[in-house]
């Protein structure tokens, strides 16, 4: 395959789409070589955004641009339909052609885009091998493929035919857990090798964090926050975003520099009054065997509920006056001998607690 990827261009959209009472009002941008992950709960409108970008639906107002050229100018404006956008789309549920072999599925794009100019089967076979499939599955129909194989064929199909941008809708939803863990690093490298803009839709937090250069959080048809993982973690603008990033979020009542959350009272750095949301990063929670002395203003005796090892940190869920998650090093878990049921002291500095009026 000789992709004409030399002039990778950015994809940019800012639009409104109304579907009955549901209004989608979105601004999203992906630069060349950038992976933007569109994340949000079910029904947030993520798939519709992808369909609009793909040219399967028109915007009511606003525009979709590729490298500054208009693809969709809204009602009465210019519209380039899906078949002329040359985007690599991986639809939700894969949507492979059930009546065609794996090879013909992948060859479909080149055949449609350049009819009669060249035999796309060699290119299709290359694409299948490139996504880690054996050449001998090329003759099988989708019904005879495993979930993981079907996923790879769908990806090969999206990548074949020199797409200018990649649009992937829940690319790992159709596989079981073990296949998924094998596919994640591979998908990561395929994305990295694609020089155009990449937009990926998911409702899975770990996918979002794993693949994203930038995250766009969509809730109820609106973008609630856009930024890198760190930017979002520093100031999450909604409970969904905080949960996504694994942050502790509580609702409480502020009275000066004290916030009462349930039966616990937290000392915070600023001053506030009335109902507030309180956010605590799990890494800001330190654990001790005995009541800590010194600077931490907040110390609570809690019970260990679960201990969940992650890649480099261990997530410790605590329960008691406050349900708090702490992220500590494996070393700390060992030193403290943390097991479920054990009592520990959790300490959080006042300056590490973020308070936002509700």
């Amino acid at each position, binding site marked *: 395959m000789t992709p004409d990827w030399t002039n990778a261009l950015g994809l940019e959209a800012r639009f409104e789409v109304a579907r009955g009472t549901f209004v989608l009002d979105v601004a999203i941008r992906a630069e060349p070589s950038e992976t933007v992950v569109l994340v949000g709960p079910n029904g947030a409108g993520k798939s519709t955004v992808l369909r609009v970008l793909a040219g*399967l639906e028109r915007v009511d107002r606003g525009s979709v641009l590729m490298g500054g050229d208009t693809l969709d100018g809204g009602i009465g404006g210019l519209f380039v339909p899906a078949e*002329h956008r040359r*985007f690599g789309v991986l639809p939700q549920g894969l*949507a492979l*052609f*059930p*009546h065609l072999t794996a090879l013909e599925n992948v060859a*479909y794009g080149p055949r449609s885009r350049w009819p009669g100019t060249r035999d796309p089967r060699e290119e299709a076979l290359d694409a299948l091998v490139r996504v880690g499939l054996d050449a001998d599955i090329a003759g099988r129909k989708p019904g005879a493929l495993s979930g993981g194989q079907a996923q790879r064929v769908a990806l090969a199909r999206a990548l074949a*035919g020199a797409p200018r941008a990649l649009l992937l809708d829940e690319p790992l939803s159709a596989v079981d857990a073990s296949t998924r863990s094998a596919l994640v690093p591979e998908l990561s490298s395929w994305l990295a090798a694609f020089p155009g803009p990449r937009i990926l839709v998911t409702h899975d937090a770990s996918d979002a964090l794993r693949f994203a250069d930038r995250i766009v959080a969509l809730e109820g048809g609106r973008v609630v926050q856009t930024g890198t993982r760190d930017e979002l973690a520093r100031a999450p603008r909604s409970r969904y975003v905080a949960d996504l990033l694994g942050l502790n979020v509580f609702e409480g009542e502020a009275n000066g520099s004290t916030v009462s959350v349930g039966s616990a009272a937290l000392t915070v750095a600023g001053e506030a009054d009335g109902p507030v949301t309180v956010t605590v990063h799990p890494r800001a929670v330190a654990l001790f065997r005995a009541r800590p002395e010194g600077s931490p203003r907040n110390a609570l005796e809690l019970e260990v509920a679960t201990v969940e090892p992650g890649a480099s940190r261990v997530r410790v869920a605590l329960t008691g006056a406050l349900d708090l998650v702490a992220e500590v090093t494996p070393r700390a878990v060992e030193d403290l001998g943390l097991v479920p049921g054990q009592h520990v002291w959790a300490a959080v500095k006042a300056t590490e607690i973020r308070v936002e009026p509700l």
Partner: protein
Amino acid sequence: MDVRRPLALPLLVPALVAALFLAAPLVGLALRAPWSTVLERATSDPLLAALRLSLVTSTWSAALAFVLGVPLAAWLASGRSPARTLVRILVTLPLVLPPVVAGVALLLAFGRAGLLGGSIELLFGAALPFTTLGVVVAQTYVALPFLVLAAETGLRGVDRNVQDAARTLGAGPWRVFRTVTLPLARPALGAGLLVAWARALGEFGATITFAGSLEGTTRTLPLAVYAALEREPDAAIALSLVLVAVSALVLFLLRRRWFPGSTGQDAAPEGGAR
């Protein structure tokens, strides 16, 4: 997977009566058949002419219904609108219309003195009534609804996501229809074609009204049965047996689609990833 459940007695008796009621005419036909001379009669010249005419015209009618009906079905399947509802009623009408009425209506539209009769005569150099082409027109008129309704159901059943995927891969609407929609709806279209053909084969009322019963030109098998009934009842029975055999063969070919429980195996569609 042989699952047997006992049938309640109040259901069993009417069920038996229904089965016997449907079987009785066939049994009567079989018992009264002059078996010794059936082959001879079934190969007599007038009968062969009627059979040939029936096969030719019903095949043409089915083909015509397919070529015109599938695009109409595609339009009906492509969305929802008041116009589509109106057209669907129009399509369904010949199904409930008595075929004789359909024949009269056809005469008023395409007959010599009909609405379009003059233009047709100019175009083809002859009028439609009392011609073989007239038979095809009458049969197509009654067969088309079967094809359109079956095709619409089949086309609507094709996964929209798969068709959308084809569009994102650079296929325009015509290519999507040819390479994705049509192949995936093939079982339904095939069944529709076969039913339309069978309906055309059995057509009587509209044909005799619109095209008459001229031996060799418009006297199809059902018309020949009717014509023979008074003068040569044995010939009528032989002809009827031929029709029964052909109809049974069609149903046998359709068994997977229509009677999935009867063969003990599932009507396995081509495997699809959904």
